[in-house]
């Protein structure tokens, strides 16, 4: 039941981010994006990935969206100017996305569809208690997975930190005002 709420909320707000009927102002789509982030973190909680849910809210909803709003305010865009909806690109978009989604759905059916449903249910029944007990995405479990020597995630972790550093330097350079 909780899953339907969160999933429905996520999809709805995602739609509103993209095709916002009320006003063309980007701030509203930013707000709806925040709602999507929150509902996704809700889904994470449902799936037992508590640490990730927290991180999702902290990083995405908190930092990224604030950054977006900050940039929108900085550029103070008036989106109202061009109202006419470019039908051609809309049709193109829907066609492409529809094709891709259909392919995705059909592949889902074939792998996880009714055919494999019974097998799935049977396997799922005995597997249910084992997995819920075992995989709890608590911070401690995730930390162990990340830093234990066997998993080999240590090197990527270091690389990511370097990546963040590079990103920061890049941003500073890019947004520096030309001296002239």
């Amino acid at each position: 039941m909780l899953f339907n709420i969160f999933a429905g909320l996520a999809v709805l707000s995602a739609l509103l981010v993209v095709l916002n009927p009320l006003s063309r102002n980007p701030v509203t789509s930013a707000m709806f994006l925040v709602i999507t982030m929150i509902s996704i973190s809700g889904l994470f909680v449902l799936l037992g990935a508590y640490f990730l849910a927290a991180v999702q809210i902290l990083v995405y909803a908190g930092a990224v969206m604030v950054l977006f709003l900050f940039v929108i305010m900085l550029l103070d865009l008036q989106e109202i100017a061009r109202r006419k909806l470019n039908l051609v690109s809309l049709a193109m978009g829907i066609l492409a996305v529809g094709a891709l989604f259909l392919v995705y759905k059909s592949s889902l059916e074939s792998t996880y569809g009714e055919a494999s449903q019974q097998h799935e249910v049977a396997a799922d029944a005995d597997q249910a208690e084992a997995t819920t007990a075992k995989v709890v995405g608590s911070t401690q479990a995730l930390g162990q997975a990340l830093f234990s020597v066997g998993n080999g995630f240590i090197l990527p972790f270091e690389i990511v930190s370097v990546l963040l550093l590079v990103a920061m330097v890049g941003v500073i350079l890019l947004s520096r005002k030309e001296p002239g």
Partner: protein
Amino acid sequence: MNIAAWLILLLPLFSAVVIGLGAFRSRKVSAAISVGAVVGSFLLTLLLIRAGGELRTSVTWLEFEGLQIDIGLQIDTLSKLMLCVVTGIGGLIHIFSLGYMKEDMDFSRYFAFLSLFVFSMIGIVLADNFVMMFIFWELVGISSYLLIGFWFDKSSAADAAKKAFLTNRVGDFGFLIGILMVWAALGSVGFADLSNALSGETAAVTGLAGFLIFCGAMGKSAQFPLHVWLPDAMEGPTPVSALIHAATMVAAGVYMLCRVFFLIDGTWAMEAIAWIGGLTSLMAALMAVQQDDIKRILAYSTLSQLGYMVMAVGLGSPDAAMFHLSTHASFKALLFLGAGSVIVALHHEQDIWKMGGLRDRMPRTYWTFFIGTMALCGVPLFSGFFSKEAIIDVALQSNLLLFLVAVFVALLTTFYMTRLFIVAFMGEPRSAQAKRAKESPALMTVPLLVLAVPSVLAGYYNAHAPNPLVLCASLVMLVFGMLVANTVYSGAKADPLPARFVWLAKAMRGRFWFDEMYQWLIDRVQENLAKLAEAIDRRVIAGLMVRGTHGTTELAGRVLRLTQTGNLKAYAFWFAIGMAALLVFTLS
């Protein structure tokens, strides 16, 4: 004995090579070597004749399984006779040209080419298989090209040489195909193997092959379709005309016919050869009547006499042809050398209407020329009479129409020869040079005298009682011809004939426009074909195929460029479509 045979062949080649390599610097040495070589060969021939009997030696030149080509010598009565003619008259002409070419600056080059010619001529005479004969056939062609085009600074001489060579080449083409057919049918090229390998059922093939081989002879002996080159070949020095276009080269075709007579005997090729011979002799005689250049008249008379010989072979008697060939060689060479001495005396004046009154100015040339003319016209007791009468006799037995043609040609021969003789030697000198003309030095007149002997005596070689009908027919023609020519031309200032028969004279003078016809034919067919080939080469291959590929690649480039619109959304769209297609493809 074998060494003697090989020496006959190789002496002239040796002299040509020595002169070519170094001796050309000094005139005397090269002249001595060349004359020595020819005379040496002549003596060796006499040696061989005295020794008598058949002789065959050969050296393999090219050998495969199924094809054996070798350089082989075959000495028998036929080749001995021809050797005599070639080396004997060749020697005399060498001595004559010592005098004739004295003040020419390319003196030694002339003798080198002359020796080369004699070498290739002897090669044809001694050849014992087709391929060797073909090799020397071409060598004779090239040496006649070099000699006709001796004064190559004159463009007329260069063109004449080119024309001679190309016409001979057409003949050689037929000859080559003939050889291929004979080889394919009978499996060998040697005359000996061919004669015994010849069996009834291959007659059909040898018929066509025989005719093709006759094409080779046609080219060389200037028979009907391929005769255009002989009159122009007079551009060369006169001794060359004497040697090549009277005695030896043109006779090579007849000699070859006699040599391979066993191949064409009894096939349909015989009639064709007879008719072509007859036609050539008639046409050439007609043309000769209206020529003014002394050498051209003699050239046409050679053509018509050759027509006689070919007709004789065509009618089935190679011996009559060979007999006439030998007698004709002597008196025609005499006439040409006589003309040569007249030309030298008149400082290279060749038009008979500028001559006249040479009777008392050049007695020795006059008398020898007189003997030559009598022999040519077939006056009894001279050599020409016996050989020509033999041919007319053969014509009478087998083909009446050709007999009439032969007799009419005899009349024409007498007519134009007496015309030449009267206009050139009798009457009053018509030009300043004619007045001041004086007898040629001994070096030139001695060969004339020496040649006069065989012109008279050669006939008695196999003299036999002439057939009465033929005898009186030829006598009537003889007397009638002389009388008409005498009345028309004695004391005439210009040629009266064109006034009387205007269009006939014009046709004769214009040589029946064969030259123009061939030239037109060549321009139409050859040049257009070549133009077409070049056009295709430039447009289709270079243009279409090369430009084509170049064009299509550029087009493809331009089309692909259109997809780079710079529009972000389009890129995203295509990206999505691409992904979808890829997924469908992989998952399905």
